[in-house]
């Protein structure tokens, strides 16, 4: 209360300053939206990457960072900009616009929730290519935009084989963020991979509603371990918390996004990890050449074992994986690359025992990208 009497001093000064700034803001508000172009992004001098988390998270964002390094190595003349910790909201558009103002004509918006902002920036900058990693554009795809991703559920199926063979309690634990199709497919593939070598196995799921919240991850991991789970895996951007919790409890781990075997020397089995370099480099080359419009990347681009260029690869095996299991995984990987191979080769039953995919049906990558049910053997509520 004692400073009340001095308030009016502030009042005038601050009011004036704010008024001046508002006027300044208004008067300089002429945005230059570049003229349309048939070859958006051609000969771009710079490439921008935005990530939702830090570049050293033992996970999703670290994989993006390593991919951006590969681009830097492949194109020494290109300036590579990277902004970390960019939230999945409208402020992402400001960060992307800033990179564009600095000369970037190609932007990689790398988190699932960056799509709205990416499409907004693409619309405002027709001469710039904005590609988004992992989401799917369900409306008409603009000429200067697209999404790209790998079929992560394929290596997760293989990792499920390792988990199903290693578990003694027949209970696997899965910590995930949001029930989006990509995650649902991962969980289902993991369970089905495990079932292929161990019919009694079940996968218990816990959602954290966040891509990276170590507090919630710790709580989720502990509750799963208390349920008797002895193999933990996850769909989180930052992976170290869950892996360390498993290792501390003497449980086993299947990694995700990046090779974190150094965090769990005892319990590491394997994992699905990224190798983004080749895909990023190819996208940059396509854009620099002016060939983006109408290319495979000007679409919802998906690659997998069937196309032979899956950016997801299997991490090195840990000590708990037997020779026999490795052989089974290698056979399954070869099978996934064939016409008949799929983690979701019918029949597939959902949690209630209803047939979701008929016997003999092999769903396409696009169909898997719209998955909205848990398969039999998965424990958890999809909250729909």
């Amino acid at each position, binding site marked *: 209360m004692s*400073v009340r009497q*001095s308030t009016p*001093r502030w009042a005038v000064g*601050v009011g004036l*300053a704010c008024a001046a700034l508002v006027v300044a803001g208004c008067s300089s508000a002429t945005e230059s939206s570049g003229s349309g172009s048939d070859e958006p992004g051609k000969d771009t001098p710079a490439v921008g990457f935005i990530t939702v988390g830090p570049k050293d998270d033992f996970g999703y964002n670290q994989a993006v960072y390593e991919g951006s390094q590969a681009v830097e190595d492949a194109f020494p003349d290109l300036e590579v900009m990277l902004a970390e910790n960019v939230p999945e909201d409208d402020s992402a558009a400001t960060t992307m616009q800033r990179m564009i103002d600095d000369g970037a004509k190609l932007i990689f918006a790398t988190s699932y*929730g960056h799509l709205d902002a990416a499409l907004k920036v693409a619309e405002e900058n027709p001469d710039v290519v904005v590609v988004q990693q992992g989401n799917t554009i369900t409306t008409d795809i603009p000429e200067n935009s697209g999404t790209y991703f790998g079929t992560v559920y394929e290596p997760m199926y293989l990792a499920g084989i390792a988990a199903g063979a290693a578990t003694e309690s027949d209970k696997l634990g899965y910590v995930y963020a949001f*029930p989006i199709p990509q995650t649902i497919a991962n969980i289902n593939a993991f369970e089905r991979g495990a079932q292929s070598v161990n019919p009694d196995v079940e996968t218990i799921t816990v959602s954290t*509603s966040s891509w990276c919240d170590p507090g919630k991850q710790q709580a989720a991991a502990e509750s799963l371990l208390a349920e008797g789970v002895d193999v933990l895996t996850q769909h989180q951007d930052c992976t170290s918390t869950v892996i360390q919790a498993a290792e501390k409890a003497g449980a086993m781990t299947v990694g995700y996004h990046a090779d974190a075997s150094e965090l769990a020397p005892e319990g590491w089995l394997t994992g699905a990890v990224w190798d983004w370099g080749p895909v990023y480099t190819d996208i940059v080359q396509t854009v620099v050449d002016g060939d983006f419009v109408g290319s495979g990347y000007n679409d919802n681009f998906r690659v997998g074992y069937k196309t032979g260029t899956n950016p997801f690869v299997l991490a090195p095996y840990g000590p708990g994986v037997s020779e026999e299991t490795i052989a089974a995984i290698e056979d399954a990987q070869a099978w996934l690359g064939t016409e008949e191979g799929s983690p979701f080769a019918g029949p597939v039953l959902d949690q209630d025992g209803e047939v979701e995919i008929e016997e003999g049906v092999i769903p396409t990558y696009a169909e898997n990208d719209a998955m*909205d049910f848990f398969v039999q053997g998965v424990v958890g509520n999809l909250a729909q």
Partner: protein
Amino acid sequence: MSAEAKVADAEVRTVPVVARVVPVIARWVGALSVALVLFSVLLLLKGANPITAYTGIWETTFLRSRPLQEIFVQMTPLVLGALAVAVPARAGLTNVGGEGQIIMGGVGACGASLFLGDTASGGVILGAMIVCAMLAGALWAGLAAAMRLVAGVNEAISTLLLNFVALDLLLFLIYQPWRESPTGQPATKELVDVAKLPVISGTQVNMGLVLAIGLAVVVFVVLTRTKWGFKISVAGGNAEAARRSGLNVPVLILSALLIGGALAGLAGMIQFAGVEYKLRASFGYQLGYTSFLACWLARHQPFPILVAAFVFAALSVSSDSLQLDAGVPAASIHVLTALILIAVLGFTAQRKKATA
């Protein structure tokens, strides 16, 4: 108001505007400079050149139209969120619940827009969103006020804990009844175009800024020039003395917290209808806590709150430049924020001595 204060007040009114403004600006510039010098040391340790870093921030954040406008967009909810701390603080209450009240404001606004659907006109939806958001925010703060009045629960604890309940409620709504699509990331469907907050002509800054600055003036007038403002400051200063002089302290406490909650709810509405257009799991993330800091930085005074909110918004927008121009980690902006907080609070403490 004490006799001493009245004299000081009268003195202040007679001092020319320039003489009043200059020391204020000098103090802030001084404090910010100290913080920037200290931060330079960190930058040097990180192998970055402080001069390049600061010129980078200046050129790409303050001299470019879009980032500058982004600062004004981001400061708007912070102003209202900080006022939501300042009003209860006048009554001696600590409202740490801005985070939850902002979320509830977003929920109230979104609920109103979903209820009215696509048929109502933009003005009707906007009006309904404002009313519902302020009611929802007030309700959330009111729960804490009721707990204090009925069970004697400290409002600093209850408002803080209610933040987590609000977040859970938001998650429930966006996962189930309000979810846009069962296969997308949990979020509500986008607000219809007519119900989006209009922008200040020629800019990308939404009208919320005008509302926030206007309300800062209103709060200033109410706190310093009305009976109610005087009464809550008496109740806040010494509740026992207030009771003995016939003031209804419970009503004053309840009203101060309700108004605080309503202001935070409005912040949520502006964030929803002016910026995000959707409720997502990250809706309003950290806005309440940042507002709380901004309010303390401004020592609970409405006009300094405008400056403090601008500073925090500018820091947030500058983090892009720190990463891209100076090449330091994104998290280093939090270090700069802390330094500024300490430096400015240090300087305002001196000011208090000088005017006492």
